[in-house]
């Protein structure tokens, strides 16, 4: 419980001096900053993980194509398609 401890330890917080407003401002700021940071971090982690995965698969596909240029159409596309629909949702949200 942050508010009471702050209220107890800070020297004096008279009501008429606007103490609650000031504390509320600091708390709201802190909460918004932390929540925002963690949302951004999570989103970033997801998107970059997806990007890494797709890139790895694409590289694998390209390597396979390079290794067997004479082979017929490679069978990778479905993998990429699945990833793509996931990625779309993520970016929109």
């Amino acid at each position, binding site marked *: 419980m942050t508010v009471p401890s*702050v209220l107890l*330890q*800070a*020297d*004096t*917080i*008279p009501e008429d*001096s*606007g*103490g609650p*407003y*000031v504390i*509320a*401002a*600091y708390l709201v*700021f*802190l909460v918004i*900053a*932390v929540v*925002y*940071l963690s949302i*951004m*971090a999570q*989103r*970033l*982690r997801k*998107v*970059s993980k*997806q*990007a890494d995965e*797709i*890139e790895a698969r*694409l590289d694998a596909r390209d390597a396979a194509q390079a290794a067997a240029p004479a082979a017929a159409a490679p069978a990778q*596309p479905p993998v*990429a*398609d699945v*990833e*793509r629909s996931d*990625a779309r949702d993520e*970016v929109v949200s």
Partner: protein
Amino acid sequence: MTVRGLRLLSILSVVLVAVGFGLVFFYAPLDTDQGFRQKIFYLHVPLGIVGLCGFIVAAWHGFRYLRTGDPASDLRAYVYIHMSQIVAVAVLITGGIWGKTAWGTWWRWDEPFLVSFLFLFLIYATYQVLRFSIDDPQRQARAASAFAIAAGAFVPVNFTVVRMANQYLHPRTLDNAANGGLPGPVLVTFLICFLAIATLFVTLVRYELLSKSTTFRLRSLERRAGGDDLLPRRSAVLQA
């Protein structure tokens, strides 16, 4: 900046904010005149300064975009303005709280700092409207950069004029902090809070930039997967 570096930066900014706020409540002395309510000063003023710097930096990136045509500069200008807009709203809210606690009203027209921020808010609120009402991506980036420069030039003029008008219309006898300088503990707390909020601002800007550039990377990978890598190059912000 890498994801790891960004994680360190965010931990640093959370720690700094925690230390700064701790100092505000447990170290900084109570103001003799204003008492507890003066403590909003450690949030309000750093936010204001950081927001202003953000707008000026955005103007600089807008200028760089016009000089070089590099979409990354336009993206930076966009992100800086976006973040400073949020900060400007926070400045208005904390200023309102200060006014409410100090004078019992949420708004006073003779507070030049607040009034200037209101005008800045009004100007920058049109940035996205302008930006996203232009379809052509290059033209969009050019107009947005020109706007960032013009509004950046507006920032100092706005502050000067509002302050002058205020002195002229409502001469004030007392100007706190300006006479005699700040006492040591107050100064230390203020500087740490300023550093904390500046670091937090930079962290948030970095997050936005990295998340946008990662999104671009994902898009281009999608195109590579779909085999249509021939799409025309678009403006960085439009894609995001």
